[in-house]
């Protein structure tokens, strides 16, 4: 529980200490948010270039040549450039957007306030983890500018492709090395962040804030941090081994008898499958790291804006815990076709289907929460509702991929690309948009423009369905993923109209995002002044000024008397009871 002396630091005065090397969790949260915002636009621009190349592989564009003099000599994008864009797109999106904004951004800002703490448990560690993350991003992006360019082995970096150096392709030299180093740095940053989140949640809760009164956002940040602690530790180890294979001549992932590009290599004794086990031991929990905060936020928004308590709060908590726990036993579903023991596929698939159950529970409970409500359609709420829709659509395709029998066809096709974009990509992004519209008033003291927000929401909602639904059909038709162009195969040529449609939808959706950026920056300066509690919400961040004072509660120590979602309580004066209202 919170004790006043844990970390009593006053507000620093200088600009640098206050906004750059800040120890304030709120500033750090905003720093993370902008890091993710930069990254998501970079990642999205890369995806538009990729989509363009897929349907116009021979187009001459002088801009490409300016950006990549060798990768696009003469203005025509090479397949290796396509693959390096793809690798960087996936890596940036997964690590620097999905892991960063929902957890480190919003979590940093709001976890302490929502539990009634003055700051994170370890403010210096917090600052360090942000700057380490930024360093990782700089190293990652620099891979574009070295000899050979960015790596082409995908965000999963399977050896031997990723382990034998430039022999296996351009980008596999310095570019791949920088990639591994960046990921290792990122792991370090995430471990620091995870420890901080866990300690803060356990130790710094205000009086009366029992675990079963925590907002579901806090529950999901807490469990996400535990996943991060266990997952990133393993990825860090794997990354170091890969680096050793690349630079020190070890053979963790490289077997004997390799002949790459007509050259006989002197490795022996390693196994390419070892990397896959280590990677996915991290990788599957990682997709929950990406989506759990979104689920917590969706719960918070659905309760707030339908003016109802969460349907089955306890079931929601158990579902989060269940997902977190089971999440560590299903990594093998990424490896059904890998050549691992086929008997283990049965175990992994039953566990995978089991993890579908808590996910389904959450969906039912969301609809239960809405049922009988009085829904206020704010932009934040629209994104939460969109999240539920996308979560269902993306979850459904998982029932196909979780069956090894059906994966015999779908593995590594566009069906997979459609699946993970729906559930982990855009659903999580919708969570971030929802969080932005909901918390912006608290963070910046001004309201965002709701009209622009709604226009942006509807166009984006239609846009993402238009991009990612057709991918399922491509997958059913057998179109493999990670193909730079489709002209070598007759059956893929027949699918070109679908690809064209998706490319247009992607360009449209990308352009629409400018509305959001405009709204964000315009509202920061010109938005209407935000009151303390614009949404009539119940959680503690809505008891303090917008933006909150430096120590969050202006020297006071909040006391919590109520559960997190006491809306429409019969007999109460207003239609909500705040957590800190008198009992």
């Amino acid at each position, binding site marked *: 529980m919170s004790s006043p002396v844990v970390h009593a630091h006053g507000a620093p005065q200088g600009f640098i200490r206050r906004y750059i090397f800040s120890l304030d969790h709120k500033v750090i949260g905003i720093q993370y948010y902008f890091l993710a915002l930069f990254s998501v636009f970079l990642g999205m621009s890369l995806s538009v270039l990729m989509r363009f190349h897929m349907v116009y592989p021979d187009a001459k564009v002088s801009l490409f040549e300016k950006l990549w003099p060798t990768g696009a000599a003469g203005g025509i994008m090479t*397949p*290796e450039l396509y*693959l390096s864009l793809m690798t960087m797109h996936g890596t940036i999106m997964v690590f620097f957007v999905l892991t960063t904004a929902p957890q480190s951004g919003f979590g940093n800002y709001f976890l302490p306030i929502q539990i009634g703490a003055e700051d994170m448990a370890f403010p210096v560690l917090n600052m360090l983890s942000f700057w380490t993350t930024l360093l990782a991003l700089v190293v990652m992006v620099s891979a574009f500018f070295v000899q050979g360019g960015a790596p*082409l082995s995908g965000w999963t970096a399977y050896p*031997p*492709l990723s382990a*034998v150096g430039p022999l296996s*392709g351009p980008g596999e030299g310095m570019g791949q090395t920088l990639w591994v180093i960046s990921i290792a740095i990122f792991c370090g940053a995430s471990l620091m962040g995870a420890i901080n989140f866990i300690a803060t949640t356990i130790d710094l809760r205000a009086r009366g804030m029992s675990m079963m009164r925590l907002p579901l956002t806090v529950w999901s940040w807490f469990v996400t941090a535990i996943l991060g602690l266990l997952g990133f530790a393993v990825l860090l180890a794997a990354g170091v081994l890969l680096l050793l294979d690349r630079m020190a001549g070890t053979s963790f992932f490289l077997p*004997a008898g390799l*002949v*790459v590009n007509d050259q006989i290599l002197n490795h022996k004794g390693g196994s*390419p499958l070892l990397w896959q086990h280590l990677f996915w031991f991290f990788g599957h929990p990682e997709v929950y790291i990406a989506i759990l905060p979104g689920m917590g936020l969706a719960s918070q928004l659905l309760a707030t804006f339908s003016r*109802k*308590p969460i*349907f*089955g*709060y306890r079931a929601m908590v158990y579902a989060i815990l269940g997902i977190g726990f089971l999440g560590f036993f299903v990594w093998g579903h990424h490896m059904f*076709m890998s*050549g691992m023991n086929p*008997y283990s*596929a*049965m175990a992994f698939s039953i566990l995978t*289907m*089991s993890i*579908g*159950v808590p996910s389904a*529970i959450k969906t039912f409970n969301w*609809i*239960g929460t809405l049922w*009988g*409500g*009085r*829904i206020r*359609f704010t932009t934040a709420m629209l994104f939460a509702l*969109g999240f539920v*829709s996308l979560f*269902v659509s993306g979850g459904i*395709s998982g*029932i196909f991929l*979780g069956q*090894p*029998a*059906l994966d*015999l*066809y779908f*593995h590594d*096709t566009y069906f997979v690309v459609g699946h993970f974009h729906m559930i982990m990509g855009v659903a999580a992004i919708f969570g971030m948009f929802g969080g932005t519209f909901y918390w912006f008033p608290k963070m910046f003291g001004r309201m965002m423009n709701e009209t622009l927000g709604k226009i942006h929401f509807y166009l984006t909602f*239609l846009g993402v*369905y238009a991009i990612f639904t057709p991918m399922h*059909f491509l997958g*059913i*038709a057998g179109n*493999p993923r*990670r193909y*730079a162009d*489709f002209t070598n195969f007759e*059956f893929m040529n027949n*699918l070109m109209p679908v690809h064209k449609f998706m490319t247009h939808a992607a360009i449209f959706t990308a352009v629409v995002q400018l509305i959001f950026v405009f709204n964000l920056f315009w509202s920061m300066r010109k938005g209407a002044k935000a009151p303390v509690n614009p949404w009539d919400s119940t959680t503690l961040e809505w008891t303090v000024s917008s933006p909150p004072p430096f120590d969050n509660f202006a020297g006071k120590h909040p006391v919590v008397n109520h559960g997190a979602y006491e*809306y*429409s309580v019969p007999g109460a004066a207003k239609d909500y009871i705040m957590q800190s209202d008198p009992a």
Partner: protein
Amino acid sequence: MLLGVIVWILTVVICYFFLGHYWWFPPPISEHGQAYDAQFNATLWVTGVIFFLAQIALGYVIIRFRDKGGTAKYSHGNNMMEALWTSATALLFIGLVLAGTRIWAAVHFAEAPADALRIEVLGKQFAWSFRYPGPDGKFGRTDIKQINDQGGNSFGIDEKDPAGKDDITSASIKVPAGKPILLILKSRDVIHNFFVRELRLKQDIVPGMEIPFHFQADKIGVYEVPCSELCGLGHHQMRTTLEVMSEANFEKWKQEQAAQK
């Protein structure tokens, strides 16, 4: 309100495209392929109904429970319903996996029949090679030092091994219809993947491993084989074909190849 209607429209449009089979599987050419399609269809129906009901319900609550004044219902949930839908989804999901087990078992647990035709598959950046034992029925030894792609020896068949003299190699794979085939999948450099859509079969090819993989194709024809595991800049052009021939034609092809030796 508007969102509810949009969700409904999207749901109907998506279901329409799934029911219309505009972009779909090619017809299967094996018993396994038919079993696969049956399992796929079962899954499609089960999940399709869930998808439809969940989205329609979402659209419904959005429209029905929009703020029209009045008060929201104060409720913390219902344990009965919680237990009900938890067990229902658990049963449904696990049931689907178990139903698919037979298909997986036939591919991976069952051994290929002893008389299956053995073919070695070699993946390398960015081409395929296939090797058949010659009339002696035996594969010759290989030696990576003797690999010579230009000279037609991608496998590195050892000159000194008499068993290898009659081995037949080919850049595409030909098999007799209606006969069990046992592939031995090998890669020389990075991971590749052997995928035939019409067979509904796919398997990674991992350097350092020899992965056995068996199938039987029943319909004569030529089918495209796209590499389906990222292997480098030429991944998208790593193409070959599977030609399913009548048994007589297959024997004729083999003799022609052997004669050229």
